[in-house]
């Protein structure tokens, strides 16, 4: 059975690119364009990994992650933050989220799926 991945990104192009790359790598990919939807999908589908943008329209991806961490159902799902924000002060917030990873944008399409897979235990 294929691994389930949830991709949360408000930018449609990036969402599509990441979805393509993960599907090519054999993932079953679920999509969400904002944090609330992402949380809902995560609770429903219980993916093996969540690929999350940080700057989302309704809340920060890190805030959404904290909500997921408080939910027993979703607290152990690894989260990989994919963000164009590379400023150092943003990193601290991401590192504070347990069981999470970071990939900077722009992504390397040739290694992306592999990098994401590394975070799944």
């Amino acid at each position: 059975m294929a691994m389930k991945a949830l991709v949360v990104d408000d930018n449609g192009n990036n969402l599509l690119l990441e979805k393509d790359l993960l599907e090519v790598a054999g993932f079953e990919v679920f999509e969400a364009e904002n944090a609330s939807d992402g949380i809902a999908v995560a609770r429903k589908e219980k993916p093996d990994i969540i690929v999350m943008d940080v700057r989302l329209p309704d809340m920060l991806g890190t805030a959404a992650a904290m909500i997921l961490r408080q939910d027993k159902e979703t607290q152990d799902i690894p989260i990989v933050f994919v963000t164009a924000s590379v400023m150092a002060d943003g990193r601290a917030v991401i590192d504070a989220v347990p069981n999470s990873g970071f990939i900077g944008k722009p992504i390397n399409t040739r290694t992306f799926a592999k990098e994401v897979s590394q975070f799944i235990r």
Partner: protein
Amino acid sequence: MKNTHKFVASLGGAFLLVTLGVLVLFWTFGQMKEAAEDRSHTKIVISSADDLLSELRDAETGQRGYSLTGDEAYLEPYLAVRDGFSSHLKELRQLTLISAAQKHLDTIAPLIDAKLVEMARVIELRRNQDMTGVLSAVGSGQGKRLMDSIRTEIISFVRIEEAELAQHEAEFQANMRRLFTVIVIASLLILMLALLFGYLIYRETQHRLKKLALLQTQHLLEIQEGTNKQLQQANVTLQVSEEKLAVTLNSIGDAVMATDAEGHVTLLNPLAEQLTGWTQAEAAGRPVEEIFRIINQETRQPSTIPVKETLAHGTIQGLANHTLLIARDGREYAIADSCAPIRNRDGEVVGAVLVFRDVTEQMEMEIGLEKAHEELKELTCELKRAARAKSEFLANMSHELRTPLNSINGFSEVLCDETFGPLNEKQKKYVNNVLTSGKHLLLLINQILDMAKVEAGKMNLALSSLPMKSLLNDISLLVADMVGKKELQMVLDIAEDLPNIEADELKVKQIIYNLLSNAVKFTPEGGKIGMGAKKVGSGIEVVVWDTGVGIASENMEKIFEGFFRVDTPYSRVTEGTGLGLPLSKKLVELHGGKFSVESEGLNKGASVRFTLPVVSSREV
């Protein structure tokens, strides 16, 4: 001196006169004495003559008595005359000095002898009891005649002597008168002398007294002069000190007002006059509250004048803040003041001194300062806001630019990799062009962001121990492809003993990659590039050189300005960002190293030299 001479002369004269007077006196006295002696002598002579006569009479009487009685006792006077008569006469003769009188005596002597003989004969007769003879002898009268003759002679003698006596008396009287006259004259003279001396002594005394008085006066004058001088000096000193005080008071930058113990104004300095509107002359003696009218700035109620408190308790008083002084003409000044007691030597409070100043300007300045401070605070806030906005802008720009680039580059790469099916050559080439441009744009964005971070002081170094030898080799391999393509020769000269350094790995790699790729870019095909590294002092020195286009001396400064690129026939404008060199310099300096570029000139190659300390000064 003249007076003394006169005095001595007068004294001498007076002495002579007195001496003369005394001599005359003595002489007159001598004359008188002589006259008196002569007189008494004559008197003795007369009395002696009288005695002689009376003796003779006594003898005659005695002889008669005997004759009558026969009593021998009656013969005693006769016997005395008979025995003493010759010596008596002799004595009388000696006493008598007048020759006429002596003649009489010469006559008397035989008469007396005759008488004595007659008497002796009678006595003899009686003794013989011849009474008849006696009677006849007596009856003859011979004895009586003899006696009468003798009496006559003696009387003549006495008369001569009496005349002599009268003459002597007259002489004595004359001498007496003369003596009196002399005494009177001498007395007058002495009186006059005494008066004269008295006068002279008086005059001299007066003179001396005057002189003494003069001297005394002079001395007093000298003393007075001295005292005057001292006084004058004291006055000058006093004046100087008063002037000093006045100048000090006038020069003092504060208004000064003094009062006596009753709180009446005694002094105003010019500033106090100016502020209160009262002159010293007008204010003197008036109660201080009349001159120094103060109110509270906010309540506009009269404020307590600190003088009262100071006078009552001898304490130093400060004025409450926000006090307004109302001048005589109604003008108001914001003032600050203090009041201190004036004490005499015994420490008693004898007045108060009030020092105050116009702080209107100061207050305005304080307000201005406060305002400026506020503005500065706002400005600082704004600056902080601006800085925050700038870094927010940078973060946002970076994010916003990367987001589309993510899909541009991502999709191009996916297409290039023909993940979803093959492309024809042209399609493949075009997609590759898109990808190259996308990557260039990403590099630009990254470098701009880095520059901005360094400039904002937001670039932090993540220090770790870097094995420089292998790191330099690794990076040289990254450019090996490009070197090969341009058929360049790369020379590495990395010292064996190159130490590890503490530095930010990513940044160091970025610097070296930048410099190596620049060297490749600006060196024509078949040229040489190289990299050397060695330990220098407490750090390492890395040199990246090439035999390329070099840098014209006039462009030496521009290469660090950003976006400057050397135009070269060997490289495309699109190949560089123009930010590589300035960013590398900034990153080296951030580590505490030095960065320099050398070039002999255009087409003469270039070498970039930089140092990194073994331990960087900056921590994460």
